[in-house]
């Protein structure tokens, strides 16, 4: 997986297009996540305040100790030195303990938030209609799940505490310096405005540069990911050089964008140091002058220098934090946009469980389109319990759409679909879907053992039942030839097994499910004829007494159907049994004859 933890620019543009929300809304929603852990947060604030205040006292104490060290031999007031040294040790110890407890607290807080965010996003994903996954690249969703959540989390947990700590440090140092020498404070009249001007200038310049950098890097990574999937094809077309060149363009663009952002951003560190050094210089000169006039002690100058360093650091840090917060906000916006995707319309209130299914299915005057373009237009059909309905037609005629509607992956724009006379919108989705077993064009296996993959969808089946289903699907022999048989773990969705075998496995899964209705979508088109015949025999047994919907390009699969619907341009062009349609001599007949057309005609 390329969605590495610290890869900037994971998210590629274009996903989840929606008008940008105001930052305020995003912030408020983020706050809700934090608010769940309000007690941890309160504790964190207390610790942070306490720890930082303790650390602030240190330099002051060291100043007192140094004051007790009078220049010249024999002048040192040891008692005072020891006293303050002991105090210093105590304060530093407490400060260290506090800051570790704080850090540990923040680690836990961020663990909880990350966990929560990931859970919310994933749980929401599982509720989204199939439509979402049909239209958005999975890569983008994944980068939200990993990269965006990480960004938000880092920022929430680190920056928040840092902002707090900085405020305390700045305020505290200022107060301390004021108590040491109100006059010497005046040097900040010079350095603070300079810092602010620089910070503002920098963040204004850097922001678009960083955005560009993420964009370009995202493009590069996306390209690398895609092309690596097609290496063999690139090789057999001998196009390596060509794709290398295209990669190179993106590589250069990404590196250049990175350079432009970095070469500007890398000024920040030295500038921060410069400000701090400048303050040191001013404190030295004016401190020395004051000291000569007796306006300050040496210890005072010493403490002042230490506070001064503490003071200027955070001010410049703010710029970094602000830019981090901004990227966190952008990431949070992507997360929330994902969470705002409309989940499947919930089951109607009082929706009924579909029970004791007989299997009478009817579609009345159904219209449907995925977007502007209509796919089904006033389509009607009806299947009696136990009937097999075959749907044929050219690609793109809307065959798969019918399945999508029957399973209620989509709702029709107009018209009604009923099962046993009940409008499927009045039924719970879960019970409706459980009424079907389904073998789809795209076989899906997950990382897990063969057994787990087969038993998926049916809880509490025995190993014997699974094996029986596998035998019926003629895949038992293959499974036994695997290194660990039924306990072999399939990696990466079964990358190592052939497509035909995958299909047999999903057929076995469907057989095991034993639902009252059956959907076969081009399920057998990749299985060789011998195997297909065996499967068909098993399928016929399975189909007995069940309502079946079959989509297949092989007419042999559907010849025995009770009803064949020829779909053309989103409507049923022809309908009848094989014989009726052959006699009719329409599209079906020409389709059927094409099967034996060898191309030499």
């Amino acid at each position, binding site marked *: 997986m390329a969605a590495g933890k610290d890869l900037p620019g994971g998210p590629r543009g274009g996903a989840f297009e929606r008008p940008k929300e105001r930052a305020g809304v995003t912030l408020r929603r983020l706050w809700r996540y934090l608010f769940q852990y309000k007690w941890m947060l309160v504790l964190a604030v207390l610790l942070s305040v306490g720890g930082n205040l303790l650390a602030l006292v240190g330099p002051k104490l060291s100043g007192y100790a140094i004051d007790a060290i009078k220049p010249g031999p024999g002048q040192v007031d040891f008692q005072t030195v020891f006293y303050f040294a002991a105090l210093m040790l105590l304060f530093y110890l407490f400060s260290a303990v506090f*800051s570790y407890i704080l850090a540990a607290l923040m680690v836990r807080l961020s663990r909880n938030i990350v966990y929560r965010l990931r859970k919310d996003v994933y749980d929401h994903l599982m509720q989204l209609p199939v439509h979402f996954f049909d239209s958005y690249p999975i890569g983008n969703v994944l980068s939200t799940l990993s990269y965006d959540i990480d960004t938000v989390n880092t920022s929430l947990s680190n920056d928040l505490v840092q902002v707090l700590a900085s405020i305390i440090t700045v305020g505290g140092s200022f107060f301390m310096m004021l108590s040491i020498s109100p006059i010497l404070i005046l040097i900040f009249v010079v350095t603070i405005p300079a810092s602010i001007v620089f910070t503002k200038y920098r963040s204004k310049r850097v922001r678009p540069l960083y955005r560009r950098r993420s964009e370009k890097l995202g493009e590069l990574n996306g390209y690398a990911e895609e092309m690596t999937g097609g290496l063999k094809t690139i090789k057999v077309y001998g196009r*390596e050089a060509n794709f290398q060149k295209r990669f190179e363009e993106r590589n250069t663009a990404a590196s250049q964008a990175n350079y432009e952002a970095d070469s500007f951003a890398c000024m920040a560190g030295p500038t921060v140091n410069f400000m701090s050094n400048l303050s040191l210089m001013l404190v030295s000169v004016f401190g020395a002058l004051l000291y000569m006039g007796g306006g300050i002690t040496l210890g005072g100058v010493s403490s002042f220098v230490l506070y001064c360093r503490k003071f200027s650091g955070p001010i410049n840090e703010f710029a970094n934090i602000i830019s981090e917060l901004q990227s966190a906000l952008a990431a949070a916006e992507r997360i929330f946009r994902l969470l705002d995707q409309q989940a499947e319309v919930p089951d109607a209130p009082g929706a009924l469980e579909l029970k004791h299914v007989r299997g009478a299915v009817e579609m009345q005057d159904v219209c449907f389109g995925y977007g502007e373009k209509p796919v089904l237009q006033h389509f009607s059909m009806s299947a009696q319990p136990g009937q097999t309905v075959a749907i044929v037609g050219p690609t793109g005629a809307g065959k798969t759409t019918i399945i999508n509607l029957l399973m209620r992956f989509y709702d029709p724009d107009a018209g009604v679909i009923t099962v046993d006379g009940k409008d499927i919108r009045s039924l719970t989705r879960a019970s409706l879907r459980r009424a079907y077993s389904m073998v789809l064009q795209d076989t899906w296996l997950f990382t897990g053992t063969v057994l787990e993959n087969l038993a998926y969808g049916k809880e509490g089946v025995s190993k014997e039942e699974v094996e029986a289903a596998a035998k019926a699907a003629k895949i038992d022999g293959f499974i036994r030839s695997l290194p660990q048989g039924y306990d072999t773990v399939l990696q990466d969705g079964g990358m190592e097994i052939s497509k035909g075998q995958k299909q047999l496995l999903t057929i076995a899964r469907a057989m095991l499910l034993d639902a009252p209705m059956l959907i076969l979508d081009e399920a057998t088109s990749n299985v060789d004829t011998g195997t297909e015949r065996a499967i068909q025999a098993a399928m016929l047994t399975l189909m007995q007494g069940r309502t079946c919907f079959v989509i297949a390009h092989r007419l042999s699969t559907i010849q025995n159907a009770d009803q064949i619907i020829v779909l053309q341009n989103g409507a049923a062009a022809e309908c009848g049994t094989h014989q009726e349609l052959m006699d009719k001599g329409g599209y079906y007949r020409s389709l059927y004859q094409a*099967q034996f057309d060898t*191309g030499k005609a």
Partner: protein
Amino acid sequence: MKTIFLYIRPKLRQMSLQLSIKFAGTIVELLLPWMLSVILDTYAAWGNQTMIWIWGGLMALCSAGALAGNVIANRMATRISRDITISLRRDLFQKITLLSARQEDAFTTPSLISRLTSDTYNVHQMIDRMQRLGVRAPILLLGGVTVTLSLEPVLTLVLLTALPLLGIVVSFVSRKGIRLYTRTQEALDRLICRAQESMTGIRVIQALSKTGYEKARFDADNREAANRECTAGLLMNLTNPVMNLVLNTGLTLVIVVGAFRVNNGDTQPGTIIAFLSYFTIILNALMMVSRLFVMYSKGAASGRRIAEVLDTPGEMETLSLPVANQDLHIEFEHVSFSYAKRKNDIEDINFSLLPGETLGIIGPTGSGKSTLLRLLLRLYDPDAGVIRIGGRDVRSIPMKELYTMFGTVFQNDFLHTGTLGDNIDFGRDLQADQLVYAAKAAQADFIFSRKEGFQGNMASRGANFSGGQKQRILLARALANHPQILLLDDSSSALDYKTDAALRRALAKEFGGCTKIIVAQRISSIRHANHILVLEEGHTVGYGTHETLLQVCPAYREIARIQTEEVE
């Protein structure tokens, strides 16, 4: 790291200049606290105002010098690391495209992707940061110690006693931390894999109402990843407080010991003040060093993964081998091959084709049909036997030449983001009329009925097209260049019979001169081939024409019977 160093070497000269500038800038900065002590202890004590102003001016100059030096050096560093990254990434991608299919299989695609993306990124970060902090941190550290030594050797020794202790803490924490982070990364990878998997299977999941189950599984992975992250974080966060505590303790000791020294007249209070300033510098430098350490280990681990790919020796060298019978276009002679080098996946395969002939290959799933095509394409070399094209052993044909001969469609072949036209052209800069011709021959007429035509958008893996449309686009790609040899691996299975028949007619008419090997499940796709090869578990169980096979090959007869009996 040796391989990565090869990329750094050409930049060494620039780098040393950069490092020198950085060095100078850092040294200048180091002088500042010392100047402070001079002002306080010498001139303030004497009451010499002019000298205070002069030294103040010097301090300002040094600050400006440090600023300039560091900015220039940092910019140089980003430029250098940019150049190194560009060439490293370029070479890595180049190498990846040149890996043999076997090597590619061994690395696995996801791993190659992460080497190209996260690993190059980590190396870039390492090179960049090393240049910026790699000099600064040690100099600040060593310089700080040196200056303090010259200021006050005894006080420095007090400070130095803290260093070994710090070293132990830092090295323990980072070593353990790196291990913990690796484990975290593994858990995260698993998490992402899981999410990806369930998104691909969302239809099945929702159809079986398994969303609850999937959520629970994800939750377990999520919890694991979050907990590992937490453990690592708890450990790593130990460094700063401990470091602060140790150093602050040292600082307190400095004051106490300093008190004795001042009392004995060995040193001055101003020196102690300067000392405290250096002390902050040393502290920061130490933090930088510990961060550098983490960054280096991360970068080095990534560097190793990149080097693994770069150092892979070239396979599939072009051999010089004698030329045999040149009349035959394609010839397989006693070819055997195994992917895993255990059981043969195909065994003793023989056939030969004259130019313009067609070979049909039929057989059950997993019988080795696709393997034959891969061997002919020399994606793999056979373990035994010889494959010849035009009488030349494929191993003796330079890759460049070899691949211009073919038009190939694999099962579920590669389609990429871009336009439809891009995917058919596939980087060959074909003429517009060639594209149109190929699309027509491939029965991809749907392209012309679309408003955008060839400019239409193609999503990654062709996700916005149906199975049949994808197959026809891929066919158009294979046909577009009028290849000598056409290899079609189950490439019309998603077409309905009518389109399939039209395709066969077009192939016979327009591509009659081209030698074809067609892997199919349907007999109708291959029954008129000059030769048909029937495979079962890697063995030839029949070879001949449709008519002969019907008579002599029971396996073929069985397939034919199943597929034609429905005609009656």
